[in-house]
């Protein structure tokens, strides 16, 4: 998220005075200062994980406050999201043998499955256009069955 930050706001007397309002209403010093800084920067929004802060901020700040507090989950990567964990896999692509070793698949198991694998590979090579469809979510399927 810091990649998207290109403006620095310094806290002066005016911002300090403004921060006193939410602080007097019970917010922590840093939460209050964070809000006042966001407002001074004319920020469109401010990500916060603190539910209480999100719910009550407008009760403390004047209605003209431009800061809209949204949960982090409303941000996606395009909009400068809170990061989700991502694994960048740079290791060489494993061979089938390496995969089977990692999975603990024995040669005997593989042999026993060979007939099914051959049948599926035949299906794969004989298939016509890929039957790619969106599968209905479980809930919708259950509702349809119930109906």
């Amino acid at each position, binding site marked *: 998220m810091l990649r998207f930050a290109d403006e620095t706001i310094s806290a002066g007397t005016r911002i300090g005075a403004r921060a006193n309002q939410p602080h007097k209403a019970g917010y922590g010093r840093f939460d209050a200062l964070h809000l006042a800084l966001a407002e001074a920067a004319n920020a469109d929004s401010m990500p916060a*994980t603190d*539910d209480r802060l999100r719910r009550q901020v407008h009760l403390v700040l004047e209605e003209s406050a431009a800061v809209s507090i949204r*949960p*982090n*989950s409303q941000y996606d990567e395009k909009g400068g*999201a*809170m990061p*989700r*964990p*991502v*694994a*960048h*896999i740079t*290791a060489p*692509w*494993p061979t*089938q043998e*390496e*995969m*089977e070793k*990692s*999975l*603990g*698949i024995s040669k005997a*198991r*593989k042999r*026993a*499955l060979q007939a*099914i*694998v051959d*049948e*599926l*590979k035949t*299906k*794969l*090579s004989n*298939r016509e256009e*890929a*039957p*790619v469809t*969106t*599968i*209905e*979510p*479980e*809930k919708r399927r*259950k509702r349809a069955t119930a109906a």
Partner: protein
Amino acid sequence: MPPLPDPKGVFLNVPYDEEFSSLYIAYIVGLCQLGLAPHLASEIPGGDRRLNRIIQLIQSCRYSIHDLSRVELSSAAPRFNMPLELGMTITWQILNPNQHTWFVCESEPYRIQRSASDLNGTDPYIHGGTVEGIFRELCNAFRHDRAPSVSQMLIVYFLVASALDSVFQKNGTRNPYSRSVFLDLCSLSVSLGSCYLPGKPEI
């Protein structure tokens, strides 16, 4: 001191119920297609306490996926197993930050903020309860320049799912989460996935 984790290993923390089985198969197919090796708690044999087995599995895997999409009440009792295993994983990851990465998956956006608000600040991967959604989110979480496309994964999924009855028959069980069926599903996914190895043209 536990051994270094398998860099391809992914501990799969999912609900073991019939309604989830299509998504469970999707996880297996998707991970195998991405060159990763899924692991389930039920896969480890032995008489050791279940919790110990799960901890060993978490330690032996570089990644873990925790699907919290079905934590709702079932049979009048809430399902605590998935959040419990997620909590164990988070502790392990905090103690060993370079050895483990965990991912949380959900079917509905914003629900996790209510069901596990301590996770606020970590956005879950929302798969929408669909097989396609699972593949999409796996590709978002595990990024590889040469990963197969979602449509390729779907083709392999349909093939593996079509062989489910034969796999059940071979193993004498209709429980998709049993160790033998799980290993067969992995083996099928790897064998069929080799048809789509990176660099090979689409069939």
